[in-house]
């Protein structure tokens, strides 16, 4: 029972990060190979605050999320300008991931490559569920707002978006910061669940898992990536698949989806619309 509970908590924590990346990649159409770095920032910031400074958990979580958002500006401001293509951001965040790992491995306060053990396990299922629910609620409202509409316009056609009055740079930056905040929150919850964090837990491979969930779940959907994220965490556990084979599968999945079904599972629509369509068809009979 405990085992299943921890899988559920892990899955929910992952879903929060996936939600963040979904806003950036699924709804704004920007490619990122490194959102795990923001998870790391959130994890380490909140862990350091509770471990060394005995900051209350909720505050530490908020600080972690805020730190991740602030850090994203370092990468975002030079690379998301209107005239620069998304490749620049992708390269920069790859570089950032490496730089962050080096920094984490060499500071006293982060305890280096050995990692930070003994973090209080403040994270419980109710807390995670509250965060996830709030996260989905806020994401939905964001995407329906004028900023969300601007993000989606950029995904569809950046030139036309500008002609509709969208400020490219500001909107891309906002999308990045929001996604980073979500990842930071996820990191904080993760650190206080696993009670132990290490720099090697936040690498390219973790970023790949996030991206795989967004793509498989479907770009432009909130429910799709959440479902995919849950499946990606729960299924391998159930099948007891080794980590490296999981990644082989993710890699292959990404290619296959792009080639054969780029919209993934729920691309550009939601579970709720699918269900209502099925119900309507049922009524018509």
């Amino acid at each position, binding site marked *: 029972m405990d085992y299943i509970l921890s899988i559920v908590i892990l899955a929910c924590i992952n879903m929060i990060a996936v939600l963040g990346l979904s806003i950036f990649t699924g709804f704004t159409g920007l490619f990122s190979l490194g959102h795990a770095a923001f998870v790391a920032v959130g994890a380490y910031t909140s862990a350091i605050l509770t471990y060394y400074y005995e900051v209350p958990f909720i505050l530490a979580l908020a600080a972690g999320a805020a730190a991740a958002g602030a850090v994203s500006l370092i990468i975002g401001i030079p690379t998301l300008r*209107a005239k620069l293509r998304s490749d620049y951001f992708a390269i920069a965040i790859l570089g950032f991931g490496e730089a962050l790992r080096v920094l984490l491995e060499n500071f006293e306060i982060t305890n280096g490559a050995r990692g930070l053990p003994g973090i209080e396990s403040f994270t419980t299922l109710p807390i995670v569920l509250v965060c996830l629910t709030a996260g989905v*609620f*806020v994401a939905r*409202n*964001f995407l*329906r*707002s*004028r*900023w969300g*509409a*601007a993000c*989606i*316009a950029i995904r*569809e*056609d950046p*030139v*036309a*978006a*500008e*002609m*509709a*009055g*969208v*400020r*490219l740079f500001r909107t891309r930056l906002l999308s990045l910061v929001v996604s980073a905040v979500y990842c930071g929150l996820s990191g904080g919850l993760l650190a206080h669940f696993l009670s132990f964090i290490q720099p090697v837990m936040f690498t390219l491979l973790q970023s790949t898992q996030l991206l795989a969930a967004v793509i498989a779940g479907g770009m*432009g959907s909130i429910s799709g990536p959440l479902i995919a994220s849950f499946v990606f965490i729960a299924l391998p556990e159930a099948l007891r698949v080794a980590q490296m084979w999981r990644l082989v599968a993710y890699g292959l999945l990404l290619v296959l989806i792009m080639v054969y079904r780029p919209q993934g599972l729920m691309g*550009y629509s939601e579970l709720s619309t699918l269900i209502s369509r099925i119900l309507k068809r049922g009524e018509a009979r």
Partner: protein
Amino acid sequence: MSPRDPLLSVKGLSRDFGGIRAVDSFTFDVREGTITGIIGPNGAGKTTVFNLVTGIYRPSAGSIMFCGEDIGGFRPDRIVRMGIARTFQNIRLFNRRSCLENVLTPLMQREKFSFLGALAGSPGNRNKDRKLRGRALELLSELGLERHASCQAGTLPYGLQRKLEIARALATEPSLLLLDEPAAGMNPEETRSLARLISEVREKFQITILLIEHHMDLVMNICSPVIVMNFGTLLATGTPGEIRENQAVVDAYLGKGKIKNERAAG
């Protein structure tokens, strides 16, 4: 700016791409309330001029005066806010969004919302949202698209997509509307209908229209003045009648065939 000044005044506009001079010391004016046409052979630089006016390209030389400012090199969204809107030769819609959402997006960008209020889904925000949706629906109706409000823009037939693009451009409340080959791919009946629509839009919304076209019947019937471009610069300008008689224009572009002279109302 006095009513006598032109709405848009372009002087000596030039733009180079590597070794190629796409637009070469181009000078023209657009007077308020007119439907001005730009014609010319392919590669004459017409769309480049549009791109320069709307801020997609920065001029290599020259000025673009609008509302008393030289807008050359301004960012596109700033120019949109100043009151210039455009449609595109290759139709750039938000394909996976509904028609309503296509028109709603620019409306929302013009409105002040509270960020935190939006995230929380506050009643104030929801009211504004409802109001804007109503306005978007109105705009769609003005162009006869209300039936397709919740259809995905990308699934619409070609002619309706063009109309949707115009509706979206109108949502930015422009004083100058740039239409880039709005009749491209249309048959004569559709072209006539479009000509009517453009005239109606000019009346209803009290705006000035500048359009690029190859369909001569459309241009000659609703545009005045007509500007002729060739090799990136001005070849001639005048009323449709004057242009038709201009030998240089005929040689460069129009050819010797007869042009159908149909009334825009026909």
